[in-house]
């Protein structure tokens, strides 16, 4: 049936007998050992990716986000006009072939501002989510792995952060530090890390009790190594889902800050800032091209990110069998 590759040490017969018993009865039915051995390894990551690909809504959303990202990166090439160029002859002009989405109160091209505004929103969304997930992971791992007083201190800090009315504190902080993309990212990350910290800690507490962690300790691995090799890999999938959803929240927060005039500095275009101009009832009632495009952009981006998050969650869920 099979030839063992290694040196014949008298175990060949054993191995073959056992392999046939095992494959016949235990794990895989009706497959010869050769077939089992020849099958490509099923990596959990690959399995998850295949499942994700079958999640149509998530896949469409992902494509949308990738396109949006490309547009944002290539903004100077894609935008029909300079987003800050003032055209005094056409203030608040309705959509026309010259300005596809019309112009705003200062005579600037709305489409160009929309395209450049994507840069701010996506940067803030991605950077804030990654920083928040990073801080949360480090502190969550530390809390869950060391336990004791370290755990208590970290988790009480998390509780304090989660019990703040975050928007008010963020407003205050931005007002003190001065509005800029960096400030917004830092401030949002500061208030979003507790969510990821809690999840990472919870996963760590569950993972550290596994036998393979004890086995790793018994084979001489240090705590740091165990965290990196065994705990982090188990935390990655739920963390990815959380980070995705956090980036949607960050985009919403940035829009809210800009809407309140505490976002990026005025001439620079951002979606929330564009909405800021639509505060008056005249604009709302008569000039829909000023607030509809940024509104739709924010809503569809956040919706797309949430769909991707859902898709990832389903893909990583071990109970799913698709």
């Amino acid at each position, binding site marked *: 049936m099979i030839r*063992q590759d290694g040196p014949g040490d008298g175990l060949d017969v054993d191995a073959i007998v056992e392999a046939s018993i*095992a494959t016949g009865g235990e*794990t895989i039915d009706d497959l010869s*050992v050769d077939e089992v051995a020849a099958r490509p390894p099923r*990596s959990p990551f690959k399995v998850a990716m295949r499942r994700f690909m079958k999640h149509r809504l998530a896949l469409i959303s992902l494509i949308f986000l990738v396109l949006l990202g490309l547009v944002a990166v290539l903004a100077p090439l894609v935008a029909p006009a300079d987003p800050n160029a003032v055209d005094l002859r056409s203030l608040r002009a309705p959509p026309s072939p010259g300005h596809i989405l019309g112009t705003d109160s200062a005579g600037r091209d709305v489409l160009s501002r929309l395209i450049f505004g994507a840069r701010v929103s996506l940067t803030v969304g991605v950077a804030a989510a990654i920083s928040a997930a990073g801080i949360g992971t480090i502190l969550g791992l530390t809390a869950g792995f060391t336990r004791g007083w370290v755990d208590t201190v970290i988790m009480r800090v998390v509780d304090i952060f989660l019990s703040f009315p975050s928007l008010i504190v963020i407003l205050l902080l931005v007002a003190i530090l001065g509005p800029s993309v960096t400030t917004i990212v830092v401030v949002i990350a500061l208030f979003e890390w507790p969510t990821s910290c809690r999840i990472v800690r919870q996963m760590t507490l569950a993972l550290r009790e596994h036998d393979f962690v004890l086995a790793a*300790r018994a*084979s*001489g691995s240090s705590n740091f190594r165990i965290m990196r090799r065994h705990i982090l890999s188990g935390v990655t999938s739920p963390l990815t889902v959380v980070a995705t959803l956090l980036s949607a929240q960050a985009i919403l927060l940035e829009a809210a800050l800009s809407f309140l005039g505490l976002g990026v500095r005025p001439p620079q275009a951002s979606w929330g800032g564009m909405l800021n101009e639509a505060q008056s009832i005249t604009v709302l009632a008569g000039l829909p091209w000023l607030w509809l495009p940024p509104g739709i952009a924010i809503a569809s981006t956040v919706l797309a990110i949430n769909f991707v998050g859902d898709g990832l969650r389903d893909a990583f869920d071990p109970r799913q069998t698709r």
Partner: protein
Amino acid sequence: MSLAESGSISPPLLSVENLHVTFHGGEGKVQAVRGVTWEIRSGEVLGIVGESGSGKSVSVASILGLLPSPPAVVSGGPVTFEGKNLLDLRERELRSIRGKEIAMIFQDPMTAFNPVQTIGHQISEAIRVHDRTVKRSAARDRSIELLSMVGVPSPTTRYAQFPHEYSGGMRQRAMIAMAIANHPKLLIADEPTTALDVTIQAQVLELLDVVRKETDAATILITHDLGVIAEVADRVLVMYAGKVVESTAILPLFQSPRHPYTLGLLASLPRLDVDMETLFSIPGQPPDMSHPPPGCAFAPRCSLSRDRSICRAQDPPLIRVGDAWSACHFVDEMEGEVAAVSQEVGTDIRAGES
């Protein structure tokens, strides 16, 4: 006190003296191991038997500092391995012994491997943990060699597979491959066959034997299965309620047990060659280890004690009886007791073959 077989001159590889392990919980202390003394020499197979909670796994895990502390508190000692007291070593020094000098084989190979990493990766990792100078490719070659050594067919393909793609027996083989990766001097197998089919059990035991002969590592085999002990061990420790109650070479254990608990275990073995109406069992329950009885822990369940006051009052020391060691006040009455129990069970339990 020394349990050394007379005539042997080589110093023991590992000697454990008066080891205590206590778990400090919310409801007082649980004394899992209460003063255990034993030793093992190179190339020897020491079996440790006892029922669940007798402290057999805990005593071994405590030696390597694998118990979570708190709640576990290890005291007593010394535990001497190659001239060093393991209980005094710092975590860093212990780490260089774990997996390199002393390796463990766990009960359930399904849970002892990380399910999201390939088997090969985990074996390579076990090699590279102790020697960062080993290149990834070299570790891979060595792992494949190890897999083939323990009888995993097509090791190159198997190297890249995940634990769920292995059968139970194959996983245990891979586990053994990982344990011997760094040429340990001592292998500790904690119930290595309990999670396996009976048919696979024999093969894994045989593999352990082959591996031991090839690497000349001493082996500690922890099990509750006297059949497994009979097959591979040279010497046996019988543990009850955190203490060693009998220590002897393998044949005398089956031929003339020196402790009523051992006798009970032997009598409890189901026999295929005898028609038995009911299976023998030791009456009662093991004691509550948060309040161990002052006398012999086995006295309430003992058929030999017959409520004699000394059993309840005084904890019997482990004393030498011929070539064996026994912790029983009435060890001289064991001959008669063996005969009596044999009569009750309906067959001579001393048959030697179990």
